């Protein structure tokens, strides 16, 4: 009789899953890109003088943060084509990845707007004043003095949000996206739902590896950009 748990399945399924990392990474990458841009705009709105913009940005953040990823995913996946359909536009044949990227961009933007806002506010206003008093324009003061420092402050939280996004991204299999999660489900189905545990373990190993690489990368980045930052050494 076949063993219930067989390590060989892990070794066998990893090479089958790895090619689909491409999809996972692409969806994550695009969501991070669009989400960061949108998040930056939202952060500027939060810090700006316009009361309406401020209200909108904070309202957006609250609603998005309070919507579970999977609910938001279904809302965009079913909602956007339904709305477009009302205007006679057919979006039913669009690649599923598009809806996934939209969903996670919107969600990442909410998280990033807070990360960026708090990092900008963490830089002492005195440095901005010093910069304009030596003859820099406001834009130059932000670009050369404030943003480089805020960037370093934001990095750990940015990395954190990115890992979160990558893991939440696995929910995309529920609308039929074939990333590594989707592929794992297909393999399991192909095995008549046996040996699911091994396949999920293989999946976990891939996510762990990916996360460790990203974690290390962000630590390196933080170190590289931390010039001039106070180094606190503990004995």
């Amino acid at each position, binding site marked *: 009789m076949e063993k219930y748990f067989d390590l060989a399945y892990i070794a066998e399924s990893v090479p089958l899953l790895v090619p689909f990392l491409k999809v996972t990474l692409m969806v994550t990458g695009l969501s991070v890109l669009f989400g960061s841009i949108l998040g930056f705009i939202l952060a500027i709105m939060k810090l700006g003088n316009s009361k309406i913009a401020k209200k909108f940005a904070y309202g957006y953040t609250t609603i998005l943060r309070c919507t579970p990823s999977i609910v938001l995913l279904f809302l965009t996946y079913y909602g956007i084509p339904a709305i477009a359909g009302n205007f006679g536009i057919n979006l039913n044949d669009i690649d599923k990845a598009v809806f996934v990227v939209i969903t996670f961009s919107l969600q990442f933007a909410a998280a990033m707007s807070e990360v960026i806002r708090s990092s900008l506010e963490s830089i002492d206003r005195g440095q901005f004043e010093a910069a304009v008093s*030596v003859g820099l324009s406001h834009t130059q003061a932000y670009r050369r003095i404030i943003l480089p420092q805020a960037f370093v402050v934001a990095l750990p939280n940015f990395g954190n949000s990115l890992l979160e996004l990558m893991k939440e991204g696995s929910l995309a299999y529920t609308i039929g996206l074939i990333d590594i999660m989707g592929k794992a489900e297909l393999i399991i189905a192909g095995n008549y739902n046996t040996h699911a545990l091994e396949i999920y373990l293989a999946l976990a190993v891939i996510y762990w590896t990916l996360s460790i690489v990203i974690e290390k990368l962000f630590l390196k980045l933080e170190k590289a950009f931390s010039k001039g930052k106070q180094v606190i050494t503990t004995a």
Partner: protein
Amino acid sequence: MLEITNIHKSFGENEILKGVDLKIDKGDVVVILGPSGSGKTTLLRCINFLEKADQGHAVFGDIDVSLRTASKKVIHGIRQKIAFVFQNYNLFTNKTALENVTEGLVIGRKIAKAEAYEIGKKALDKVGLSEKYDAYPSELSGGQQQRVGIARAVALNPDIILFDEPTSALDPELVGEVLTVMKQIAKEGTTMLVVTHEMSFAKDVANKVIFMDAGVIVEEGSPKEIFVNPKEERTKKFLKRVLPEDYIFYI
């Protein structure tokens, strides 16, 4: 060279400056004294447009401008001629001492990098930091940081340098090194407007002392006039509080 008339500034309900006039000539070292909350710092910040005055007028060389409605361009122009030394140094923490000094030259004034570095090094030499060109602010003591702050102002070769309580954030044993540098640049003929609690600096270096209280100038004159023969009751009270009993004898 700089003439300010009738500055008013309120923060909410709280009126900080209630019509202050100020005239500074080239080569003047003017010290503003006064209890905390009297509006000294706000006055300085309004001159450099770090705060927008509610009312007031400035004549600066050939620039004649309202402090309330000055355009961005005029403000930028005036800031090119006025340097500011901050109480908390406000050094750029992501830049070395030399980069702190040259930032305004290279980016603000578009001076070639090599030339700016020469000017910057000279300014740092002047404040006794020849060994610290490449040090980041976090690697410097408070006194050294403030000297970089002064070098940053001096390097711009401004018409006037504003000092906002430059020694107030320093440990007592570090105050001396900063005052020495300030005395030295005053001797070189730099025009300075200094808010300070260092009476010795006012006495030894200033050619004009202004006493402010509650948003107005109470009294102004030479150090001798203010310290030896103060006319106003408020000035006398303030001096009695801040000066040691027998101090007057040594003037």
